[in-house]
């Protein structure tokens, strides 16, 4: 479904990713893990068109998208939950969710999806008229997820959805990711919490200073010594 070929991204003179290759198949959950600054978020920004790669290709359903605008990419069915939530503060929960459906015109379907999001995150329904700026971190994370789902993505990109969350929320978030996946959305997941990430992933890639250094199924990686040492603390 998604193929990344020889992707190199720069910030000025800093090369953040070095000829990265990986792919995501339809229906999978794929995890990217790696230390701080390894280039994980950069990969997602390149896929979404927020930051243009210098060289390499990104194919979505065999169609090159690395020259498309973010708008086009969203239209094609890729949606991202960015690192640090980035909800629209000053707007209510419901307005935030509606922003997720910005490109859609099917009013009735949007209402249905809104209900679907509220079913998944009941707390958001209680808070629907509240300014997202005053929500707690966990609630903001749910808004960010719900907002991404409102575009009915085929591929969902998640950047550290568990960061700064209480343990109880982390469990909930991962349950929801699994659920979304079983209902047909392909997921590309970035996580510091490598253990959980690899547990729910079909496959995973390990990034180190801008390069893919290891790949395998989630279970293989969990069992790997290098991964154990570098990312699982033992």
């Amino acid at each position, binding site marked *: 479904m998604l193929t990344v070929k020889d992707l190199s991204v720069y910030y000025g003179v800093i090369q953040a990713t070095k000829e990265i290759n990986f792919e995501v198949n339809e229906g999978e959950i794929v995890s990217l893990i790696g230390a701080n600054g390894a280039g994980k978020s950069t990969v997602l920004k390149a896929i979404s068109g927020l930051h243009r790669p210098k060289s390499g290709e990104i194919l979505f359903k065999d169609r090159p998208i690395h020259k498309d605008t973010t708008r086009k990419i969203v239209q094609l069915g890729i949606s991202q939950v960015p690192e640090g939530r980035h909800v629209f503060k000053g707007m209510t929960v419901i307005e935030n969710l509606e922003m997720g459906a910005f490109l859609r015109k099917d009013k009735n379907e949007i209402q249905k999806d809104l209900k679907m999001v509220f079913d998944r995150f009941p707390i958001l329904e209680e808070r629907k008229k509240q300014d997202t700026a005053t929500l707690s971190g966990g609630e903001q994370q749910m808004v960010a997820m719900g907002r991404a789902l409102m575009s009915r993505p085929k591929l969902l990109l998640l950047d*550290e959805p568990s960061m700064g969350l209480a343990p109880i929320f982390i469990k909930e978030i991962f349950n929801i990711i699994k659920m979304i996946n079983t209902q047909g959305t392909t997921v590309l997941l970035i996580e*510091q919490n490598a253990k959980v990430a690899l547990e729910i992933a079909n496959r995973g890639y390990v990034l180190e200073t801008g390069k893919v250094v290891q790949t395998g199924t989630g279970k293989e990686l969990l069992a790997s010594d290098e991964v154990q040492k570098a*990312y699982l603390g033992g």
Partner: protein
Amino acid sequence: MSLLEVKQLTKNFGGLSAVSMVNMELGDNELVGLIGPNGAGKTTLFNLLTGVYEPTEGVIDLEVDGEKTSLIKQKTYNITAMGLGRTFQNIRLFKDLTVLENVLIGMHEKNKVGTIASIFRTPQYYAAEESMRKEALELLKLFNLETKVEELAKNLPYGEQRRLEIVRALATKPKILFLDEPAAGMNPQETANLTSLIRQVHKDFKLTILLIEHDMSLVMDVCERIYVLEYGRMIAHGSPEEIKNNEAVIKAYLGGE
């Protein structure tokens, strides 16, 4: 008396009570944890203690030179001068300054170099600069940052930025150090390194540390006591073992296995 005493502390934002009726005590050279769900009011509590927010009501008393001193309505910089140092949940370094400058700024108030002396470059000025520099370099060495003194803070990797924030807080010579989610965004390996660092600081500097953290491996590992907040209220307090098995905490925060 204990070092820091908090009684009936409350903070309302409009209709929302972010912290309500919280009691807490910190003694000398303790390492205490503060946990609770997102939005429970942990950071707000830090902000109240350090004078960033003014409490709606309540008492905060700090022991200064053997005397009980109220911190209510005190300015942040006075509170810092009295011995409370902190780091921030979202790193707040002086990004465009060098690592060394960040630390020197932390030392400024404790090494009073007058404006006039600085402008006229008196001998005192040179002496003070020398000694500050020396001290700062020593601190940085302790945290393995000595090779980065001339780097701009914003160019450091994330983990080193977190460490620099701790160094900078230590430069103010605090008696109590507040750490707000120091391990956020770190992977388990990095968290493990941080854990030992915190232990070392606690030991070498003989200070009290209050730690907010969602990473239970870190909290349960290093803390002697743990406070638990939920919806602004203190719902539990005890040793790591007690907290781990506290029903209310499991329900609100830890989640069942």
